[in-house]
């Protein structure tokens, strides 16, 4: 409404603000999962994921090196030197040597612990603990540190889920199983449906309107009805549970949408072009492969994305037609559901597993969104 004279700019601002709020609301859940997948189990259970994006103050306890092994003589006293941080130093705001007062000193100060014993902690985390031999013995001195913890993320969860994890924690196999289900189940229905769609769009034969109505009707039949009869059929003819069965099932279940979508698109191609190809001497087969298929690319891409997302994200069909008692053919969705049951509290595993399973669809989604939108617009029955 920017172009309209005399409009209220307050309204424009309200619109922008509302959209921002809606976008944040819709994005927040996914971002939570994404962030959590980069945190360690301890981090996840100690604070909400939203806290991890900012620097936080955290109380930590360290212990100096063992005095019996590491003390060196310095005149008439002994000294133990070292650093509390293994890796890079973190900013220390305060520290102490007693649990009663964990922030008694600032970095660079020395704590006098009586009897000639003192401890000096530098801002970089290095310390000098000095004192007579009777004090510097036994276990190392405890140091309580209030440190600022910057955002800290790890790839460890992905390492576990993709490579090193064992049993249910390893998604590599399920990932490839899912891929194995998805790719043939996406490509084969396209080929079959494209031919049928061409026949329904451009070939003259009796009963054509009836067949189109048949396809439209099957578009809404819930696949729940197909489960028992087809499982019985598969078991009866020896396909059993396995890839072949799930490919066949996905191919058939995707067929109504594929035929409907592709026919609607093809019927919109200009009649003149097809007739001209006929005059040019093309057979139906040649018209299909040389004219219709190249021109139908947007519709083919739309359906391919639908079918990919649907088969990749499917749980029910895989559970019924694919996954047998051994579980060796499990797909990612199924494995995640099982993880929810057995490792419901282990968010580092769950979040990472879930993100591994949604990563590829998200990539496909953002790369090919244009075609997805076009397919949605063509595919909803008017």
């Amino acid at each position, binding site marked *: 409404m920017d172009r309209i004279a005399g409009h209220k700019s307050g309204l424009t601002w309200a619109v922008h603000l509302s959209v921002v709020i809606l976008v944040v609301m819709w994005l927040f859940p996914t971002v939570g999962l994404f962030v959590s997948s980069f945190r360690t189990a301890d981090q996840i259970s100690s604070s909400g994921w939203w806290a991890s994006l900012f620097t936080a103050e955290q109380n930590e306890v360290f212990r100096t090196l063992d005095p019996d092994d590491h003390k060196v003589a310095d005149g008439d006293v002994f000294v133990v030197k070292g650093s509390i941080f293994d890796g890079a130093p973190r900013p220390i705001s305060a520290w102490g040597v007693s649990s009663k007062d964990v922030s008694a000193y600032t970095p660079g100060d020395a704590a006098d612990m009586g009897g000639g014993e003192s401890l000096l902690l530098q801002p970089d985390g290095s310390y000098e603990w000095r004192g007579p031999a009777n004090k510097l013995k036994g276990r190392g001195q405890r140091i309580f540190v209030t440190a600022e913890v910057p955002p800290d993320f790890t790839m460890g969860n992905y390492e576990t889920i993709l490579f090193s994890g064992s049993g249910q924690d390893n998604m590599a196999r399920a990932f490839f199983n899912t891929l194995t289900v998805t790719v043939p189940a996406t490509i084969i229905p396209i080929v079959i449906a494209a031919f049928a769609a061409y026949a329904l769009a451009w070939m003259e034969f009796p009963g054509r309107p009836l067949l189109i109505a048949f396809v439209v009707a099957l578009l809404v039949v819930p696949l729940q009805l197909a489960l028992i009869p087809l499982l019985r059929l598969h078991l009866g003819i020896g396909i059993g549970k396995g890839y072949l069965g799930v490919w066949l099932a996905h191919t058939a279940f995707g067929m109504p949408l594929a035929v409907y979508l592709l026919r609607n698109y093809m019927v919109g191609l200009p009649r003149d072009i097809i*007739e*001209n190809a*006929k*005059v*040019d*001497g093309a057979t139906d087969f040649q018209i299909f492969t040389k004219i219709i298929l190249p021109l139908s690319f947007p519709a083919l891409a739309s359906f391919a994305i639908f079918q990919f997302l649907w088969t990749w994200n499917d749980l029910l069909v895989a559970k019924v037609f694919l996954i047998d008692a051994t579980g060796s053919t499990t797909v990612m969705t199924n494995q995640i559901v099982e993880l929810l049951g057995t490792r419901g509290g282990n968010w580092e595993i769950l979040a990472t597993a879930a993100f591994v399973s949604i990563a590829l669809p998200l990539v496909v989604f953002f790369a090919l969104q244009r075609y997805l939108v076009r397919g949605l617009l063509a595919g909803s029955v008017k």
Partner: protein
Amino acid sequence: MTSLSLKDVSKSYGAVEVLRDINLEIQEGELIVFVGPSGCGKSTLLRMIAGLESITGGTLDIDGVQVNDVPPAQRGIAMVFQSYALYPHMTVYDNMAFALRLAGKTSNEIDSAVKSAAKTLQLDHLLDRLPKALSGGQRQRVAIGRSIVRDPKVFLFDEPLSNLDAALRVATRIEIAQLKESMPQSTMIYVTHDQVEAMTLASRIVVLHGGNIEQVGAPLELYERPANTFVAQFIGSPAMNMVDATVTATGAETSLRMDDGGHATVPIASLESDMGKKVKLGVRPEDLSITETDDFLVAAKLAIVEALGETTVLYFDPREGADAFIAKLPGIHKVAKGTELKLTAPAEKLHLFDESGKSFLYR
């Protein structure tokens, strides 16, 4: 030599008959134009010749071979569509080569055919472009080029100029006329609803109306000797005026009395039995002139004047139950609206039709 002949051809969709008893012989090298109002069946007839519509009854011969059941590609025809029907995913070159490739020609043959057609049509520099990168006129030329490379016996054009703007339409029309000149042996059939295209391009015009052929003839023949009132009013713009009249004398010349008082004697023969019959006298607006004498055809009150400079078109109040009466006079005439004017025309320019609309010339 006869190139194409239609015998008793008819077409019906279910119970609806769209073409009846079409008989037509087309000679080699002719440019035949099918013309008629929309819905007259001209496009259907063309598509039947192309093989895109089945023939319900009768026979269609091309070069002496009956082709009723022959698929389009084997009929030796090429077609230029109204929308050009260029394959949008192929370059200009591939568009032109497509049919030849399907026919299994060698790439050398294809290349020389495409190149020479492209040269004729000045498409050389566009061969690598996709159709969407061409202008309307260029697309039209590619569509024509695509038909030329096939070297067909018969070219079919389905309203090829109707998607072009007015200026381009004239230019392309002239190009098609030149193309025809350069290929005197090829037969062309051209469908249009525009009578100017028909008059300028055709060697013979076929006027279709309501599924029938009304008349076949050279352009000026149709203009000068229309076979019936439909053709008379379809060819020529503005349309021929029709005046109700009664025959008062018969013989080698026929005398008439108009219902509103005018009278005429036309050099058209009539039979004695025509005496006293109701007829229609046809007169073209451009043949009329204003007269002061009592020897007038029609007297009427002027309703509207359109001064175009080169001509002046006068619209008269129609008599009750009659069509509007129009006169088209050369030059500028300053006449006031509402004036009662008397109009006349040379006797040899008058047309005479009987009550069923048939011309006296063709009885």
